[in-house]
Structure formats: structure tokens, C-alpha cells
């Protein structure tokens, strides 16, 4: 489970990592409100219907955005058994291939997410039960944004591996 190679030159831009850190606190918030909900339900007999949707919105967003961070840091799991055996130059070419595949996939997911998110937002889609939260709109938009961000990161990786391959 080797972390992908990026010759240690991590872009130090705070553009991705700072917001991501903020997003990650969503997990702590989830723990707190779920704990609170159990207390409210057992001690005060007042179940909170908004908790479940809230938790899903936070965690679902973290799932998608976590992928952005992992791509940015180049740590998505990859099989390196063969990769490690080939010469440096071939490795550069393989890096380029990986970035291209990622960019294509993420652009396609982004397009699908855009179709879904646009429909969801125009219909003002909500869950329709309990709290009737805007969960579908939120998560579909988050997926769209994450896919776009990841596609952009992948494109910069294409550019960088291309430069390294040429240089």
C-alpha cells in the first residue's frame, strides 16, 4: 500500500488543506450531536429527528472532500509491485498515465454530478421525511464541487508529470 510518488515536492498551497482541516471537524461535530441525541432520547425522552440527516450531510461531505485531500497529497492506494521495478523514466510515463486516467474519470463523474445536482437544485429536492432536510441538494452539490476540484488537481498533476517527463 505504497503512497504514490511525488518526489517529495508537495505543493504547500494552503488553498486545499486549510478548508479541508475545517471540514474534518465535521466528524467531531457528528460525535457530539450523536452523543447528545442518545442523551436526549434516553434521559429526556425527546428524540431529535434532525440528527440523522445532519450527520449524514456532514459525513457524506467529508467522504467526498477527503478524496480531494488524498489526491492532492498523492496518497491514493496504488499497486507499486511493477512500478518499483521499472526505470525512472518509465515511472514518469506511468505517473502521467495515472494522472490522465484520474482526470478523465473525475471529469466524467463531475459531468454526471452536474446533471444530478442541477436537477436537484431546480426541483428544490428535500428528503421528504422527518426533518425534510435539503440533504440531497447539499450532498449532490458537494460531490460536484469535489469532483471538479479533484479534476483540476489531476490536470495539474498531468502538467507536472509531463514537464518531468520532458525535462
Amino acid at each position: 500500500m505504497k503512497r504514490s510518488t511525488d518526489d517529495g515536492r508537495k505543493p504547500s498551497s494552503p488553498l486545499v488543506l486549510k478548508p479541508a482541516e475545517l471540514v474534518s471537524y465535521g466528524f467531531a461535530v457528528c460525535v457530539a450531536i450523536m452523543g447528545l441525541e442518545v442523551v436526549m432520547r434516553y434521559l429526556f425522552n425527546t428524540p431529535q429527528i434532525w440528527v440523522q440527516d445532519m450527520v449524514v450531510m456532514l459525513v457524506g461531505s467529508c467522504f467526498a472532500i477527503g478524496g480531494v485531500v488524498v489526491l492532492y497529497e498523492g496518497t491514493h492506494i496504488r499497486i507499486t509491485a511493477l512500478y518499483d521495478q521499472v526505470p525512472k523514466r518509465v515511472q514518469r510515463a506511468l505517473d502521467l498515465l495515472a494522472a490522465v486516467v484520474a482526470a478523465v474519470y473525475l471529469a466524467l463523474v463531475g459531468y454526471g454530478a452536474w446533471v444530478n445536482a442541477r436537477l436537484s437544485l431546480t426541483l428544490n429536492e428535500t428528503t421528504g421525511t422527518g426533518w425534510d432536510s435539503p440533504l440531497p441538494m447539499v450532498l449532490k452539490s458537494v460531490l460536484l464541487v469535489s469532483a471538479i476540484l479533484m479534476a483540476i488537481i489531476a490536470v495539474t498533476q498531468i502538467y507536472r508529470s509531463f514537464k518531468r517527463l520532458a525535462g
Partner: protein
Amino acid sequence: MGIEIITLVLVVGILLLLFTGVPLAFSTGAMAAALILMEFGPNGLGLIATRIYDLMADFAFVAVPMFVMMGLVLEKSGVTNDLFRAMSIFGGRIRGGLAVQTLVVSVLLAAMSGIIGGEIVLLGLIALPEMLKRGYDKKLAVGTICAGGSLGTMIPPSIVLIVYGLTTDTGVGELFLAVLLPGLMLAGLYVGYVMVLASLKPEVAPPPSADEADMTRAEKRQLLRRTVLPIAVAAWVLICIYTGIASIIEAAAMGVIGALASAAIRGTLSGRLIRATCGETLRICGMIMWIVFGATALIGVYNFFGGAAFVTSAINGLDLPPLAILILMMLILFVLGMFMDWIGILLLTMPIFVPIVEGFGYDPIWFGVLFTMNMQMSYLTPPFGPAAFYLKGVAPDDITMGDIYKSFWPFIALQALAIGLLVAFPEIALWLPSVLM
């Protein structure tokens, strides 16, 4: 394109991408997206985005980050370190004591979190230097840590079983009960192996010197007291799950709160701890979930073209007895395990395998236990044995990748033996749920 061609293109394409080092998360998804784009144009892509959204919006997946957090808090606050030290009280005097101690701690850690990577790294940092210092055989030490650390996928609360339950519509609570005895059996086999080896070849596991083994009563009591809390946390989570006080997800959140409480009592709870835990949880989930997204896209597209029906009829067309097909499935899982990680394998194969197995009249709960047992092997088998990579990261330089993989074979043999036992005696898994549920 016919389904036969589609199957071939997908299998070959994905294997090619995987072997050239394209991340797992994108190999599967890219093939699926390309295929649906070719057949249906851009509008087909909505299918993929919808499947991904369905997973994001699934409350059940909240259990994953919760159990990850619980493990991280216990690890980062030093609670697990205490646990290893305390267990030396029991490990001190028997043959191969340190290795046995490592295995016991592995089981306890597995019951608290079950993040394979974290467990192996942790044991690699605490137990490995200790064993090497004592003059343990390198291979015994490494194998014990990696095999023990991989138990996290079996012992409840296991993320593998949660995802298995969600994918196949089987009860997670029942799965947790069913896996308990097989998991302990496997750990027992490891312990037995270590003890037999240590008495046959005492040089691979030297006993402690007299003064090392000596500890005052007060010291022992102090050590033991420190372990009460983490064990209580693990027990609390399991009690919540088995008695139904809280759902599995709420129990997981309660586990995080319990872990935070034990960090606070230990005096290591801090803002930094919480920040580091959240950040790492975000990364671990990002890694796992995008692999899940890719796999769900692939399986969705493949089934859209009639893939599941095709594989089912192909397997049934073999006209083999159920047991032979079961063994064939185990072999397929074993081979896949050499190249992929459990979650990819689970999402790709289980939607197809489980209905077939159920058609034979086998219990899907039992099959789930077999699956997790099989995935134990996938952690250790080269060329893609995650356990080896995790340990290499923290092992001394003179332990090579070759050493690590060589040390695995006895343990892989024990895992195969355990699978055999479980196939021959399904009661090992099914007895406990039948009594308690």
C-alpha cells in the same frame, strides 16, 4: 457489445491500469465511466453520480469514520501503548511470551477499532523493537505482528463486516456474533503456532532474563489499572451493539466518546489530539470511500449491462457440486486478494457470489465470516499485501520486503487451515448467533 466482450474488456482494462500503478480508486471507476459513455453518451454518466450519491447519503456508512476515530483516539492518546505494557504481566513467563503478548494485544486492539494499518504500525513501533531486543527471530516477530494486526478485519466491530452486511442485506449484529468464535479460533491458532515453535526451537524466542521478568506487585497493579478503561470502552461498544441499546452507528459514536474520556483520564486529551484525529479520519475515509465510489460505479455499470446474471449463469453452467463452487469462490477471492484490497473485492464479488451461495442453501452470515477470513490472507499475500507495506514503514532498515513476505507463509497456511475448518464445521460461526439471537 455483448456481455462477454464487456466482461473481458473490463477485466483486462482494470488489471492493466492497476498494474501500471493507477490508483485503485480511479482504475475501476474510469473503466466504468468510459464504458457507459461509449454506450449511452454523456447522459449515462448520471447513473454513476447517482450511485456515488447513494453511498454518501447512506447513514450506515457513518459507522466507518466513527470506528476509525475511536481507534485513532485510543492510539494517539497512548492508551494502546499502556495496553501492550500491561499485557507483559501475562506474557512474561510462558514460552514465546512476547509474541503471545503481541497477539493478545492485537485481539484487544481489534475489538477497539480494527484499522489494520494503524494496528500494524503501532505494534511495529512498540512490539517489534522489544522482540528484536530480546533476540527473537526476525521472521517470527514480523509475522506475528502482521498476522495479529490483520485480525482487526475479523474481530467486531469490523468495518469489513459492516460493509458486507450493507452490501448483502445481512444483519451486522448477527455477523458480529458469528465472527467472534472464528476470529478467536484464528488468534488461537497463531498463539498455538508460536508456542509450539518456541518450544521446538527455543532459539527463535529466548525467554526474558530474570530481572526483566521481575516486577513488583505495585507496578503490576498500576499497569493493570491503566488498561481498565480502554477495555471498558471496547466492552461498552460491544454491549451497546449486542443488546440493542444503541444502533451500531450510535454505539460507534459512543465508542469515540468513551475513547475521548479515557484520553482525558489519562491526561492526554488535547485540542491537538482532536485536530489530528479529525484530519487523519478525513484522509482515511477519503481513501476508502473513493475506492468504494469507483467500485460501486463499476458494479452498477456492469450489472446495467447484465453482468451479474452473466456471471451467475456462467458459474451455474460449470455444473459443479456446491462445495466445489464454494472452494472455487474462495480461490477467486484469494487470487483477487493478491492484487486488490478487501473493499474493492467485496463490492465487486459479493453482490454476485452471495445470491449464488444462498441459492445452494448456504447461510450468508457464514459466508460473510468465510469472506473476512479469506481477506485475512489478502493482507499478507504478495505482491499487494498491505500489511507488509504498513510494517515496512516503521521496521528497521535491515528488515527487507523479502524478509517480511517470507515471514508470512506459516500464518497464511494457518489462515487457510482456519478457512478449511470453517467450511467443514459451519457451526463454529453459526452456533453463537443461534444461541443468542
